């Protein structure tokens, strides 16, 4: 009988044979040999020192284990790396590119995939791939409903959780309707990052899940649904809540960190993040009041995965694959899930791990503000990426150009 | 042939003649060009020195010791200059100011230093080599400026109102010092001034920029000759 690993490898072989016969990690030893001594330029958003520290630590591991150095290229915006690869393609630079590895998901992935800027498929033939929980965590192979097709490899799970200051707000609202009522009674204490910011749009999608009668249409492209009818309850909800928002909706924070800073400054009572462990980590770092707790809505919250992808012209392709594989290593995954480090949820299936590796996860502290895995509730799949674009554009039309 | 010869030197601007000099200055002689402001005195000076602006047109020749220096740049003409303001280089010491002028063929630190100190002695400023020029009095500065001009071993000297900033008492002494040095070294010199007393003190001819003799209340020897080519003998050829 074939083991799960062999079966997956066989499947991947059948699916991806033409492409990776030439370039994929079929002969892992050869990849390792080639990777030794390479320096992988990993383009990753550099806005969070904790993540930067984690990447540096992974770099030490890669060097010690495989002789691969990691150089993090800290980006203000992942699209900068996409733009770089595009510029290289325009300039006819088909090998020796500057970008070896990109931290990516969602729209950036869809854009690079559509423009043929990615190398692969490679992910599903990585040695650690069989440990990935593709069944329990479908977001590891479905990036905003876009099948990853092995062109990117997951390394962290994210789920939307709400953060609140329990000292000021003992009973936080747990649904879209409850949130609206609470905001009306407490004007000026709630806001969200301005769409098209990623987290801000996710918040809108979360509300949409809560107010639209049939959320299943969200998994299809927006053109396939009656957009106006589906989103009408969302706009009604927003029209009702906007006057009660922070600054009466005349200004919005730019992004997730700006929103978190407002909570830390006491400007708002309720915030949210795409990382169940963020609040605990921030409290541990002395950046947030220790009275902050997290919660999820009844019916669940949106979740997705973070990936790494390799551009078509990456100079250090072998090294990049080694790093992608290393990121799936149970020890690395457990480190990422440690609330004192990142608090990112693992992409691995704990059932697939050895006893010793499972113990690493069991030993993790939860953190003062983090919910235990079971309390996180059901994970709602990201709607099709076209919803995000359309909703963000409509939001801008309705609320984004107020005089 | 020695001396400074202005051979039909004519400068015009927009067709108007500003300078028209046909003049020979013998070694040790000081000729004065005098006139009111705007009369073309400075233009004459600039023409002889070779720093005329592009708006001027020059014809004629300037000969120094028989050599035509008209096509040469200022630095190669060997014509020294003393300005109305002494213009000592403010970032250099007194000694360095003098050493700047000293020809490079005098080699070696101590040899150069020796020449500089001797020059300072001559100027009555012994031991002043390391002084900051800004700490000198007006008279001292004027003497340093003269010595600097002389150390460059010029073959002629131009004086651009060099005494006008000095008070009356100092002026007489500095003027005498400068004229003594010129005569002692046998330099042909041209003094540009609007000051009658300075002009008379030179004991030489006084012309306006267009070459006309300036009438003088005191009949100074050798003055007021309209055509000056014959002022002194020079061998033909």
């Amino acid at each position: 009988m074939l083991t799960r690993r062999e079966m997956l490898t066989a499947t991947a072989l059948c699916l991806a044979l033409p492409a990776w016969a030439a370039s994929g990690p079929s002969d892992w030893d050869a990849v390792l040999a080639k990777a030794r001594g390479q320096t992988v330029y990993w383009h990753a958003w550099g806005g969070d020192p904790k993540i930067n520290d984690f990447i540096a630590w992974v770099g030490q591991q890669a060097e010690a284990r495989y002789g691969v150095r990691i150089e993090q290229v800290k980006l203000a915006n992942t699209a900068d790396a996409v733009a770089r690869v595009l510029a290289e393609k325009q300039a006819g630079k088909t090998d020796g590119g500057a970008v070896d590895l990109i931290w990516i998901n969602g729209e950036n992935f869809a854009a690079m995939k559509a423009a043929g800027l990615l190398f692969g498929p490679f992910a599903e033939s990585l040695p650690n791939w069989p440990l990935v929980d593709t069944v329990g965590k479908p977001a590891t192979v479905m990036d905003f409903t876009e099948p990853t097709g092995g062109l990117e490899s997951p390394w962290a799970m994210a789920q939307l959780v709400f953060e609140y200051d329990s000292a000021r707000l003992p009973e936080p609202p747990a649904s879209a309707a409850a949130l609206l009522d609470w905001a009306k009674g407490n004007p000026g204490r709630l806001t969200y990052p301005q769409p098209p910011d990623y987290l801000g749009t996710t918040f809108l999608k979360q509300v949409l899940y809560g107010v639209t009668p049939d959320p299943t249409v969200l998994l299809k492209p927006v053109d396939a649904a009656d957009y106006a009818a589906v989103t009408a309850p969302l706009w009604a909800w927003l029209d009702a809540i906007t006057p009660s928002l922070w600054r009466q909706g005349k200004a919005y924070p730019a992004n997730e960190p700006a929103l978190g800073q407002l909570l830390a400054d006491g400007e708002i009572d309720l915030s949210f993040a795409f990382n169940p462990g963020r609040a605990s980590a921030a409290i541990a770092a002395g950046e947030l009041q220790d009275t902050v707790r997290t919660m999820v809505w009844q019916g669940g919250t949106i979740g997705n995965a973070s990936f790494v992808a390799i551009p078509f012209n990456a100079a250090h392709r072998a090294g990049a694959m080694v790093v992608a594989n290393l990121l799936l290593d149970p020890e690395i995954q457990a480190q990422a899930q440690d609330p004192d480090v990142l608090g990112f949820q693992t992409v691995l299936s704990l059932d697939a791990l050895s006893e010793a590796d499972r113990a690493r996860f069991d030993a993790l502290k939860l953190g003062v503000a983090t919910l235990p895995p079971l309390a996180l509730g059901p994970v709602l799949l990201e709607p099709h990426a076209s919803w995000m674009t359309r909703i963000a554009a409509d939001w801008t039309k309705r609320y984004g150009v107020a005089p | 042939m020695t001396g400074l010869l202005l051979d039909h030197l004519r400068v015009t601007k927009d067709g108007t003649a500003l300078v028209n000099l046909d003049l020979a200055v013998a070694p040790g002689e000081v000729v004065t060009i005098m006139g009111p402001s705007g009369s073309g005195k400075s233009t004459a000076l600039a023409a002889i020195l070779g720093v005329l602006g592009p708006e001027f047109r020059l014809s004629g020749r300037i000969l120094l010791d028989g050599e035509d220096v008209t096509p040469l740049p200022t630095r190669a003409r060997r014509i020294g200059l003393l300005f109305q303001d002494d213009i000592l280089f403010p970032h250099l010491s007194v000694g360095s100011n003098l050493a700047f002028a000293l020809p490079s063929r005098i080699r070696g630190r101590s040899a150069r230093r020796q020449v500089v100190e001797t020059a300072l002695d001559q100027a009555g400023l012994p031991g002043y080599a390391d002084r900051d020029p800004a700490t000198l009095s007006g008279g001292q500065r004027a003497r340093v400026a003269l010595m600097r001009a002389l150390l460059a071993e010029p073959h002629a000297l131009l004086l651009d109102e060099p005494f006008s900033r000095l008070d009356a008492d100092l002026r007489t002494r500095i003027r005498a010092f400068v004229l003594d040095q010129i005569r002692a070294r046998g330099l042909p010199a041209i003094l540009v001034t609007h000051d009658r007393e300075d002009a008379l003190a030179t004991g030489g001819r006084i012309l306006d920029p267009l070459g006309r003799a300036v009438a003088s209340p005191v009949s100074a020897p050798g003055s007021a000759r309209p055509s000056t080519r014959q002022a002194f003998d020079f061998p033909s050829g």
Partner: protein
Amino acid sequence: MAGPVIAGLAGNVLPLIGTDAIGRLLAWPGLGGAVRLSVVTGVVSTLCAVAISLAIVAALQGGRRFGLLMHALSPLLALPHAAAALGLAFLIAPSGWIVRLLSPWATGWATPPDLLILNDPGGIALTLGLVVKEVPFLLLMLLAALPQADATRRMMLTQSLGYGRVSGWLLAVLPAVWPQLRLPVYAVLGYAMTSVDMGVILGPSLPPPLSVQVAAWMMHPDLSWRGPAAAAALLQLGLVLVVLGIARLAERPLARVGRHWAESGLRRQGLDRIATPLATATALAVVVLVAGGMLGMVLWSVAGLWPFPDALPAPLTLATWTRAAPSLTATATATLAIAILSTGAALALCLGCLEAETRFGLAPGTAAMGLLYLPLIVPQTAFVPGLQVMVLAVGAADTVPAVAAAHLVFVLPYVFLSLAPPWRAWDRRIAVVAAALGASEARTFWHLRLPMLLRPVLTAAAVGMAVSVGQYLPTLLIGGGRITTLTSEAVALASGGNRRIIGAYAVLQMLLPAAGFLLALAVPTLAFRHRRGMRAA
């Protein structure tokens, strides 16, 4: 320097602009508001900055307070725009330092008030930020221009005729100074209308200023937005050119007003009584706002938890610094290397240009000067990506020299701007004296002109270093991420909004250029300590 701009524009912007791009730009509902914001904040902030700088110089120059003020202001020049904006934001926000200092004892606020101060739709916070950042720059340019205008004697003369300080300055000195000041003012206007980092931090977002929107579209994951972004960048360029044209045309009527005033003989001594305290107060306000913001950032870099309304962070910690330390040496070295290369090249070019001007009378015309300033006026997002494609095609990307060359495009105008006026003001008779002493042009240059102008040359170098250190987009795009500088790191970190780490990097970002300015002050003072004639004016 126009070459790279035009090539960048041609290489990037033009191919992207199809009818579709223009259509999508016009269909963007925020277009009207964004254009209005860019123009209004740009023009108003420039007018205010010019008025304040003129008032400060007219009312205070020559006094003891003026010297103190200039000492306080000059380090502010070194502050990168983003750091200044973040500091100011922390100062004036409803949960910011000023409110914290007054709460709760004076205001009664236990939680921050819900007041729209930052990111206000009118762009007042953005205008304020631009004003406080540009006043030190304009003051420096003004001071460099004053000696040529013979300001001291003109002031003595007008005051002996019974004119007030301010009116005398405006009537007799300003007309002589303005030709020197015109291009710096245009550079300020161009920057104010196209700034991205300040617009993001202080400006409104509903809609944002046009420049911010251009940058957002350029960075949009959906690559098709680059078309509208390119079209918007061209629109922005057009706006800047129109506003500059109007500014040029407005000079004539303004000069006529001045002439009428001068002919009327009105002494307006009373103006001094208003202007002097007002100028002192605004100057102080500029210093307090920028320095206060900076101090706030320094505190954040060592802060543990610092909740509202605490005036000071309770636990102080070096955690932020120790975390940043390992990568610091390499980053600082790269930053310095690029700054030295680009500034060195800019100095060499400017000195060569000015020396040619002195020797052969080859003064650049207005058109040439306009081209030199093109990189300051054309939005960076419009042509830097095109430059990137060009550099990649040549195969020179990702190297320190390539990044330094890209920086040179922006460093050169500023170096020329600060070097040319004192260079041209140098006493030409010194060159004549030297030539009469037999010195060659080269000897005059190396032994007289250069050492005598050491102070302005070093100041120009310090300005150039500060500009190089502050570059973000060219570093990122031309360096391909392989070359990181303090600013490319700082902006990446700033996108995370973490005030602690932003504070640490803002301090570092300022430290390098500040060291440059310090050297520019100290070296000539030390070298000429025994030369009274070489003291700073």
